[in-house]
C-alpha cells in the first residue's frame, strides 16, 4: 500500500463525482469549495448541480465550520427579579467538509490543542465530533504557499479521509475511524485502486513544492523559548509601521482562535454570543484599566510572536502557522508572517 498505516485505496471516476456527493449528502450536510462569479472560492453546502471549485484554496478557511465567526451561546431573560438562562447553541447535524487542503487540515490540530484540551470548549468540541474532514492533495501550489516550512506535505494531507484528484479519478483513502465509516458508506460508488497514479501526482507536486519561491523558508530560528530573543527586537518597529490595524490577516487565518464574548440586548432579553476578535484591533482584550497592548507595534508583535514563539512554547514545538498563504494574499499592505520571519530570522545570518 502506498501510504503508511492505511488499509486500502479506493477510487471513483470523476464522471461519477456528483453521485458520490449525493451519497455523502444523504447522511450528512456536505460542504465543498464553490467558485463565485469572480472565481473566488468559498465553502457552500452541496446541492444537486453544485460544482466543486478547482481553486487552490478558499478565501476563508474551513475553520468556520468548527469555530464560526459568531456563535450564540445563551440567552438571559428577566421577569421581575427572576433571571432565566437558556443554552441556545444550535446542535449541528453530522457534516462533511470536502476538499480541505493539507495546510487547513493541520489547522485543526492547532485549534484542537486550544479548544479541546482541558477546559474543553464544548461548542467547538461538539462540532469537531459531528464533522468529518475530507482533505484533498494539492497539485498546483502557488507562490504564497509555505506549508512545507511547517512540515506539512501538500501532496499527502491528513484528515479523516484523504483524496487525490487526478485527470480521470478521485482517489480516496480513510485515515480514521470516521473516515472508514464514510468510505464504507460509499463502497458502492468506489472501487479498489492501486497507488500508482497518486504516487505520480505526489512526485510531481513535491517537485513543484521545491521550486516555490518560499520553499527554503527557515523556521529553525523560531519556536518555544525565543521570547527574550525577539520580544524587544528593533525590527518590530519597521515591520509594524504601516500596519493598518485591520483584522484581515486574523479573519482569513485558519489558526487564529481569539474571540470576544459579547451581549446583545434584543429588547426581549440578552443574547450572549461570541465572535472572532483580532489581536490587531485597538480594542482587543480591553479591560477596566484600559488596554494592555497600546500601540500597533505591540499588537502586531503579539500576533507573530504568538504564531512563532508562544504557541510552540506551550504546544510541544508546533507552530501556530500552517503556511496557507492567505494573509500573504489578502493583507492590504502586503505585510505578513513571511516578511516577519525573514526580517527577524535574517538578522542572525549577518
Amino acid at each position, binding site marked *: 500500500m502506498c501510504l503508511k498505516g492505511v488499509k486500502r485505496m479506493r477510487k471513483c471516476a470523476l464522471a461519477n463525482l456528483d453521485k458520490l456527493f449525493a451519497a455523502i449528502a444523504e447522511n450528512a450536510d456536505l460542504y465543498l469549495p464553490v467558485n463565485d462569479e*469572480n*472565481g*473566488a472560492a*468559498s465553502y457552500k453546502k452541496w446541492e444537486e448541480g453544485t460544482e466543486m471549485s478547482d481553486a*487552490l484554496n478558499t*478565501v*476563508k478557511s474551513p475553520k468556520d465550520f468548527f469555530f464560526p*465567526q*459568531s456563535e450564540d451561546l445563551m440567552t438571559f431573560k428577566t421577569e421581575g427579579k427572576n433571571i432565566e438562562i437558556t443554552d441556545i447553541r444550535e446542535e449541528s447535524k453530522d457534516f462533511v467538509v470536502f476538499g480541505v487542503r493539507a495546510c487547513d487540515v493541520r489547522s485543526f490540530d492547532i485549534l484542537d490543542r486550544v479548544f479541546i484540551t482541558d477546559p474543553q470548549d464544548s461548542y467547538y468540541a461538539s462540532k469537531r465530533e459531528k464533522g468529518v474532514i475530507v482533505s484533498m492533495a494539492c497539485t*498546483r*501550489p*502557488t*507562490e*504564497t504557499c509555505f506549508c512545507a516550512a511547517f512540515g506539512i506535505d501538500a501532496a499527502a494531507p491528513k484528515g479523516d479521509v484523504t483524496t487525490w484528484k487526478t485527470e480521470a479519478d478521485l482517489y480516496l483513502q480513510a485515515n480514521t475511524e470516521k473516515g472508514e465509516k464514510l468510505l464504507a458508506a460509499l463502497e458502492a460508488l468506489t472501487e479498489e485502486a492501486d497507488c500508482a497514479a497518486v504516487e505520480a501526482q505526489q512526485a510531481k507536486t513535491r517537485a*513543484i513544492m521545491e*521550486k*516555490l*519561491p*518560499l520553499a527554503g523558508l527557515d523556521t529553525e530560528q523560531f519556536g518555544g523559548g525565543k521570547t527574550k530573543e525577539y520580544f524587544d527586537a528593533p525590527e518590530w518597529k*519597521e515591520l509594524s*509601521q*504601516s500596519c*493598518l*490595524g*485591520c*483584522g*484581515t490577516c*486574523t*479573519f*482569513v487565518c485558519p489558526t487564529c482562535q481569539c474571540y*470576544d464574548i*459579547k451581549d*446583545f440586548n434584543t429588547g426581549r432579553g440578552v443574547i450572549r*454570543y461570541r*465572535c*472572532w*476578535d*483580532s489581536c490587531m*484591533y*485597538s*480594542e482587543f482584550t480591553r479591560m477596566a484599566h484600559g488596554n494592555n497592548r497600546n500601540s500597533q507595534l505591540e499588537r502586531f508583535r503579539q500576533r507573530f510572536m504568538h504564531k512563532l514563539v508562544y504557541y510552540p512554547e506551550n504546544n510541544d514545538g508546533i507552530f501556530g502557522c500552517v503556511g496557507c498563504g492567505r494573509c*500573504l494574499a*489578502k493583507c*492590504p*499592505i*502586503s*505585510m*505578513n508572517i*513571511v*516578511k516577519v520571519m525573514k526580517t527577524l530570522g535574517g538578522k542572525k545570518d549577518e
Partner: protein
Amino acid sequence: MQKITREVLIEKAASLLNEGVVSGVLGWKQGEFAYDVTPALFTTVDELNEQFVWGDFCGANFSKYLVAHTRKTQSKVLVFLKPCDTYSFNQLLTEHRFDREKVYAVGIPCEGMADVSKVKAIAGEGITAIESTEEGLAVTTLYNDAPVVIAYEDALAERCINCKSKKHVAYDELIGEEGDVLESGRFDQVAALEAMTPDERFAFWQKELSKCIRCNACRDVCPACTCEKCVFNNPVSGAETKAPMGTFEEKMFHIIRAFHVAGRCTDCGECSRVCPQDIPLHLLNRKFIKDINTHYGEYQAGAEVGSRAPLVNYTTNDVEPGDVFERGEENA
C-alpha cells in the same frame, strides 16, 4: 506601464534627504513577490536604493499615513502622491487632520495601477516574476513555460479604468507632466444598479454584503476614516460590533460607513482594493457622490482645500427627500 522610473523618484528623494529638507520618505517597498508592495518610511538613501519600488502595483494611497506620521515628528516627511492620492491629501487638510508644514508632497504621474486579482486570474497560480514591457505585463509562473503577457488594459484596476483625474490638486513639487481631470464612466455601474428593480438591487447587495467578514480593512485603509475613535469600536455609540451578526449588521456597518464619508469620500477606491472578499464597496460611495452631483451640484471632495462638504452645507431650495426617489425613477 509607468512613465516615470524608480530611479527618478529615488534621485528626488535622495536629494531632499541629503539636503535635510525631509527626514523621511513615504514610499513603496518591495515585498516577497513581484506584486506585493508595502508602504514604508525610508530614512536613508541606502534604504531607498535597496528597497524603494515604483511600478504598476504601487496602488497604496499614503495620505492617511500622514495623520499619524506628522504627529510623531517635528521634521518634514516626503510623500509621493499619485493624482488620485492628492484629493485625499487635500480632503485631510480641509479637515485639519495633519500639519501641512511637516509634509513635502511630490506629485508623480500615474498611468493606472494593475489589479493583482486580475493578473492572478489571467496568469494562474505560481507567479514568480512580473516584468513591465511594451506589450504589457509579462508574467512568469511555475506552470507556464513562457511568460504570459497581459495587456495593460486587461490588468488595470477598476478604479484606474474609471480614473477621474490625472491632475494633481496638491503638491510642493511635480515630477513629470501634469494631466487633466478626466471624464470617466465611474457612475455607469451605479446607474445600472439604479435601473434594476428594488428586488434585484436587494438581491445584489444581499449577496455582496453577506460576504463581509468585518475585517475593517475598508475602514482602516480609508483616508476619510481617520476618526480618533470609530463609532464601530466605541461601546457607548450603540453601533459597536465586532462581527457581522446577521444580515442587518452587515448593512448597518456599510451604510453608516458610507454615510459618514459621504461628501468627504474622494473616490480613491482603496476600500474596494483591499477588501479580501472583493465586495464592490466603491459602488456605495459612488452612489452618494452621484446623488450629490445630481441634486446639489457637481462636487469633488478634495479638489480644493477648505471647500464645504455637501452634507455640511445646504441651499434653501434643495430637493425634498421624497423627490429624490422620484427623480431616481425617471432615470430608471
